[in-house]
């Protein structure tokens, strides 16, 4: 049996000889390189990409040992909404609720800031690929849940079974279904059997479905645990959740990870999230000193950056926005018409008008947040009216046509829709907008519209994005893409444990997408946080998936 850590796991070819060779050179592929890059006392800073414009964040860098870390204090964070339904990571549904979960819970496998599964952050001190469909996990010793019980391998089986059960209603259930069986060898060893090779699974385990929850706490009542989740192993323990007002957590004195000063993390004593729905009011709260961190309105970013009073951090690529085409309905079943539309969209103008030039121009389905898998797509359509007209002439509609498009009922969707209408007029394509609250259903269920103007929040592993959006059986395959070649590439990428090989497959997939234009990718979203200067390590705000983490923050004053 090959004992490997996450570094060679990710570059692991299928044969032992190759594995040893890989281990011998220290790291294989981008995953290995990323791990070397983030080794050492703590993480390097990582913001997941460069926003079109963003000021460098201030504050002491985590690896800067010349700065004495101050322990204690309370961090006040403004959030737009309270947790959606549950603070149990398995059952919580809010896409923005990870910031709460990540303080209290940890995964059997946790990915680092480069999106690579990393034992340094994981409850498993090692994971081994016994064969392509068998993974062995060795748990850390003496990890205590917040309810005082100690973590055992049996808990792994319990948690996976719980997430997979329909009655438990876990939002992460679908992601964990590839695990067909969990064998418990002893208190520290659990073995997963998979339905087929799945390179994405380790990263997925770092998301909500793989978080470890105390069985003792859950058995006391799943519903009660939703509101009072005292059963994680994370650096902070739950204190209170006052609906629509605040969520508070306090330091876990038994936490296992160490800070750069050699003592146990976290540095902070307490975190309080204040629920402030209006982001202008949240910004006012930052300026009046009531909160330390906010997500400022894009319209205020210039002022904040020029003022220099606050630290600004950014993350690019939590999602892309654009348009899905219905490939089963004329005229969008014509590839040349789709190409004409993709070349007629002025992405720069859209970014300027809608996002104050703060987002990044998109070229493909994978965003910069996909880290090792991301490469700008050189063949991607970009704004070029001459080319657009050329493709229109080649299409069945050389004199132009009309397409119907559903959009959300928000102001933002209406503005984007109106912009695109104007852009497409230049090639004589009339875009008829249909604003609907159920705008996605019209495309998926009724299927009587040509397009859907929407986006997609990327998944922790690139497989999640591609297999859901452009695989013929993908749940979010709104345009009914049916391309056997693409399906085959996605399957091969999922089943390969070689990161370099996976990346090549994804580049091949991107080439097909750029050529066939099943979707138009216009911008990659950017998130910003403004924080007071007393907050240190703000460069570590965003994790690989673009969700906030505060485990290594500390307050200077």
């Amino acid at each position, binding site marked *: 049996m090959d004992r490997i850590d996450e570094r060679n796991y990710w570059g692991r070819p299928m044969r032992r000889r190759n594995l040893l060779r890989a281990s011998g050179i220290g790291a294989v592929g981008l995953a290995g390189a990323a791990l070397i890059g983030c080794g050492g006392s703590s993480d390097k800073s990582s913001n997941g990409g460069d926003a079109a414009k963003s000021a460098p964040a201030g504050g002491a860098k985590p690896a800067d040992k010349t700065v004495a870390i101050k322990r204690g204090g309370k961090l006040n964070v403004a959030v737009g909404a309270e947790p959606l*339904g*549950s603070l149990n990571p398995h059952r919580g549904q809010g896409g923005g609720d990870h910031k709460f979960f990540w303080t209290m819970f940890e995964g059997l496998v946790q990915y680092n800031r480069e999106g690579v599964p990393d034992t340094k952050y994981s409850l498993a001190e090692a994971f081994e690929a016994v064969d392509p469909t068998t993974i062995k996990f060795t748990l850390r010793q003496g990890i205590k849940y917040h309810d005082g019980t100690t973590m055992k391998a049996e808990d792994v089986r319990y948690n996976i079974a719980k997430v997979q059960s329909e009655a438990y209603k876990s939002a992460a*259930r679908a992601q964990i279904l590839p695990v067909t069986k969990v064998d418990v060898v002893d208190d520290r060893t659990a073995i997963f059997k998979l339905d087929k090779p799945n390179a994405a699974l380790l990263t997925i385990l770092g998301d909500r479905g793989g978080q470890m929850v105390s069985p003792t706490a859950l058995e006391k009542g799943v519903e009660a645990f939703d509101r009072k989740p005292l059963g994680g192993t994370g650096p902070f323990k739950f204190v209170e959740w006052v*609906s*629509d*007002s605040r969520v508070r957590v306090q330091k876990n004195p038994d936490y296992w990870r160490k800070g750069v000063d050699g003592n146990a993390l976290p540095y902070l004593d307490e975190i309080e999230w*204040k629920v402030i729905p209006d982001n202008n009011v949240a910004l006012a709260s930052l300026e*009046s000193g*009531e909160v330390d961190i906010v997500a400022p309105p894009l319209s205020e970013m210039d002022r904040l950056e020029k003022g220099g009073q606050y630290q600004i951090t950014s993350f690019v690529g939590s999602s892309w926005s654009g348009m899905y085409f219905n490939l089963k309905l004329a005229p969008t079943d014509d590839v040349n018409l789709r190409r004409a539309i993709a070349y007629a969209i002025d992405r720069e103008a859209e970014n300027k008008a809608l996002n104050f030039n703060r987002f990044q121009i998109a070229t493909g389905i994978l965003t910069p947040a996909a880290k090792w898998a991301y490469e700008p797509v050189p063949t991607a359509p970009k704004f070029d009216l001459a080319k657009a007209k050329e493709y229109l002439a080649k299409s069945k509609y050389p004199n132009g046509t009309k397409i119907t498009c559903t959009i959300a009922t928000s102001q933002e969707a209406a503005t984007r829709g109106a912009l695109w209408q104007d852009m497409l007029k230049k090639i004589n394509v009339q875009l008829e907008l249909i604003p609907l609250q159920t705008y996605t259903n019209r495309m998926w269920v009724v299927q009587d519209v040509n397009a859907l103007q929407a986006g997609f929040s990327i998944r922790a592993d690139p497989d999640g994005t591609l297999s859901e959006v452009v695989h013929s059986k993908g749940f979010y395959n709104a345009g009914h893409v049916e391309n056997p070649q693409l399906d085959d590439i996605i399957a091969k990428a999922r089943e390969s444990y070689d990161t370099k090989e996976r990346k090549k497959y994804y580049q091949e997939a991107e080439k097909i997408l750029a050529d066939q234009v099943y979707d138009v990718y216009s911008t990659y979203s950017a998130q910003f946080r403004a924080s007071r200067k007393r907050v240190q390590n703000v460069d570590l705000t965003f994790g690989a998936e673009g969700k906030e983490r505060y485990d290594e923050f500390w307050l200077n004053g």
Partner: protein
Amino acid sequence: MNTEYVINRLLQTVLIMFLVSVITFTFVSVLPGDPVVLLIGPENAATMTPQAIAQAREELGLNKPLPIRYGEWLGGVLTGDWGTSVRTRQSVLTSIRERAPVTIQLSVMAWVISTLIAIPAGVVAALRRNSWFDRSATLMSTVGVAVPNFWLGILVLLLFAVKLGWFPASGYVDPFEHPVQGLRTLFLPSMVLGLAQSATLMRQTRSSMLEVMSHDYIRTARAKGLTPYQVTVRHGLRNALLPIITILGLRLGNLIGGSVVIETVFALPGMGRLAVGGIFAQDFPVVMGVVLVIGLAVPMATFLTDIAYGIADPRIKVGRSAS
């Protein structure tokens, strides 16, 4: 006040509540979208067996015809079970119990502030008709009606919280636990809500006072040698009160409506925010619960107004002239 009047009023309230609940239940139920998908997430719904989805629908009672669902909801309400929020999985009654004090405190404080501003200002404006004070008060009341709450809220925040630092910009502290801090957090939202409300009340006070002050008995009171204060308050204001009380009563309902916006701007965890969250998530048990409470509050305010008529003017026998 006679018993027959009270019974009549209660029956009217029950009828109003019934109609409001039927209309709201129908509207919420016909909204597009599926609460089951909302509850378990779209990806999850795609992997669940039809049996599991059917079971989830059954748990939420969505598989039954609308009138039966309404009947079950009504039966639950009458027996103290107001249902569970689809979105937060919390009991609706618990949610309302947690939020109602915030909205009540906000509304009462705004009501007091608006009354304290509007009545004296209205009286002075009437007494000093066409003076600079009258003109300024008229201008202020016009602005008060015209300016949207949320915009005024942001302006007030920037001035008093950010620039001057006198009050916190957002958040809520229970005034019964920390009186000073609690009143500080409620002051700005109450002021914004109260200012808008005071505009109408001031205009009503002014015109009512103008009318009363032109009556013969005021001239008689003056001729008797009463002080200006006695003439204005005891003879003038007291007789001008009836239309003012009507506005005061009706405003209670408006205040609860206005709190929806103000609670969002000032991040107060009240019933208004609960309702907004419920509507966006098609969380019908929550929407129904909040509508029920607000639906009860408005007839109650009208009932209290009727009682206040009798106190302000003993000639009015509640139950005869006012019913």
